[in-house]
């Protein structure tokens, strides 16, 4: 990972959810949603966190904002240890990190006018001297996300899905964050509308120097937006690296399987292959050894017995014995 201190760094992050049972709701086990991950998001760059449902990627996004509390690990924002902060101190950092979710319908209050939804955060952080000034800023933000500022007094239901997602982006930008976490932010949109939003996000990054953590299952979107990619499987990162390298020379069998499974729209390229067998096991009972071994096309004796570490590969890392350097040692 890069030498300069990143905007956001996570180290050994763990988020476990208790499984409770019976009348007394005793804890009988844990779902290890996030089970020891390291992440760096440099200022002004985009890190994509990819994986399939249940891999823990959304929980990572929420835990970075402490919307769910990590059980273990360290979290730094511009060198400040976020997990050591009390609620009022954390509030200050919520301004620097904003999140946009998949479903703009669910994240906008249907009874709140668009103007008030966007101005709410400004007020909470003391941005803008008075209501009139905040309204002016709302108008500018709406124009920036290519909506008509004259529509600020309307309600969310009067907008289409793509327009509502623009409103959510404007609301996030209202408090001038340095990091925007996009959790499947374009997944519910039609492809022609998704293209509009992706282009908008790219323009905003170029203009404002925003950093993005882009959480998605869509590898095409990742290729389009990300500088680096982290691939998650069952609560762990299995491969990380520069986008070009991940797509051009994937090392982990799971990454390879994911890429081979994505259908192309090129009529000369047909025939996805299901290299990855079976279904994702439950994160409450992850498999022994390498968590991917029951589905891996390249599994061998060692995989169920021993847990692979992250080995350095081409400027990134891969959690697979096949990526282990010949003269062992020298791993992080």
């Amino acid at each position: 990972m890069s030498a300069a201190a990143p905007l956001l760094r996570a180290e050994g992050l763990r988020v476990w959810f208790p499984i409770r049972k019976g009348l007394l709701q005793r804890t009988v086990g844990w779902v290890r949603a996030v089970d020891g991950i390291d992440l760096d998001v440099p200022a002004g760059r985009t890190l994509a966190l990819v994986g399939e449902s249940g891999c823990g990627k959304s929980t990572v996004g929420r835990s970075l904002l402490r919307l769910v509390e990590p059980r273990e690990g360290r979290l730094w924002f511009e060198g400040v240890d976020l997990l050591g902060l009390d609620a009022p101190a954390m509030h200050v950092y919520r301004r620097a990190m904003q999140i946009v979710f998949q479903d703009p319908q669910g994240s906008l209050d249907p009874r709140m006018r668009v103007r008030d939804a966007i101005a709410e955060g400004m007020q909470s952080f003391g941005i803008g001297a008075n209501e009139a000034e905040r309204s002016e800023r709302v108008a500018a933000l709406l124009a920036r996300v290519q909506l008509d500022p004259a529509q600020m007094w309307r309600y969310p239901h009067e907008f289409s899905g793509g327009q509502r997602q623009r409103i959510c982006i404007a609301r996030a930008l209202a408090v001038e964050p340095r990091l925007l976490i996009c959790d499947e932010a374009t997944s519910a949109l039609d492809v022609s509308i998704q293209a509009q939003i992706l282009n908008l996000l790219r323009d905003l990054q170029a203009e404002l120097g925003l950093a993005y953590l882009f959480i998605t299952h869509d590898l095409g979107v990742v290729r389009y937006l990300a500088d680096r990619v982290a691939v998650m499987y069952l609560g762990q990162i299995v491969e990380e690296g520069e986008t070009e390298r991940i797509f051009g020379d994937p090392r982990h069998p799971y990454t390879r399987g994911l890429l081979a499974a994505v259908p192309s729209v090129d009529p000369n390229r047909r025939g996805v292959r299901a290299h990855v067998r079976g279904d994702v096991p439950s994160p409450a009972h992850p498999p022994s050894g390498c968590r991917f071994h029951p589905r891996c096309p390249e599994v061998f004796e060692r995989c169920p017995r021993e847990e692979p570490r992250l080995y350095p590969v081409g400027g990134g890392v891969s959690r697979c014995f096949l990526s282990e350097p010949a003269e062992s040692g020298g791993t992080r």
Partner: protein
Amino acid sequence: MSEPVLRVHELVTSFPAGRGRAAAVDGVSFQLAEGEVLALVGESGCGKSVTALSLLRLVPKPGRIESGSIRIAGREVLTLHVSELRSVRGKEAAMIFQEPMTSLSPVLTVGAQVAEALRLHEPMSAAQARRRSVALFEQVRIPDPDARFDSFPHQLSGGLKQRVMIAMALALKPRLLVADEPTTALDVTIQAQILELLRDLQRELGTAILLITHDLGVVNELADRIAVMYAGRLVEEGTRVQVLGEARHPYTQGLLRAVPSLGRRGERLAEIPGVVPRPSERPPGCRFATRCPVRLPRCASDPPGDTPLAPGHVARCHVVAQELAR
């Protein structure tokens, strides 16, 4: 020439909108030959799912089929008596949906549900029905099929549930399978498994498939021919290679350029400006006119007719017609 498995002619299906009714499907015609896979593609609200539901007269109220003709294996579906309709459903044509849980009962084992479907159409003993069901589970490659017969739907993953649905749909060896977004709710590795399965089954059984989807990649994997739908109408139709490789309608071209692909990086995605017009705001001419980058003055007022481009390749667009005339 033999009768096609499916022939849809000038289908109109409407829903209430404001004070009147709006045609979600507005004069759609297409055919599907024996053993062929036709993909009906388009974005949300284009009318592709309503078209699929119309085929077996499953349009939920207050939706209504207004006019047109639907022939499945030579029989006119729209005038069939309800009792006859039941024999068409399942035997001639079966349907699978995006979300298997909406079609599976949560209180019965999946095996019992497949067995019931079999015994409904053909008298057989419980033991026989079980044997046949387990064989079907095997055919759709459900691991450990005998044990899975006794599972309840909630005990199965999304991919396995979709396999059960496919087994149930194929139980009576229909000539036509209507698959509405069959892989949309699945993760990409599971989607790849289901696509492989559908491709193999189609080859083995020769079932004709009408595939309804928004995903052009999925279309490329399965389809022989593609029909592109926009705001209730077909705008382009052709073979897979013609539509994905030589698209002529500005909407099809826009859709293809808007897909972020694994192969490209850097260049900006092409946007289709604006949004799909509401049914009440559709222009009287070409429905894509409000968003079209190359529209002519007459596009907003005159509905375009079919312009044949090559055998099997048709576009409905004034601009294409004009270019061809030159």
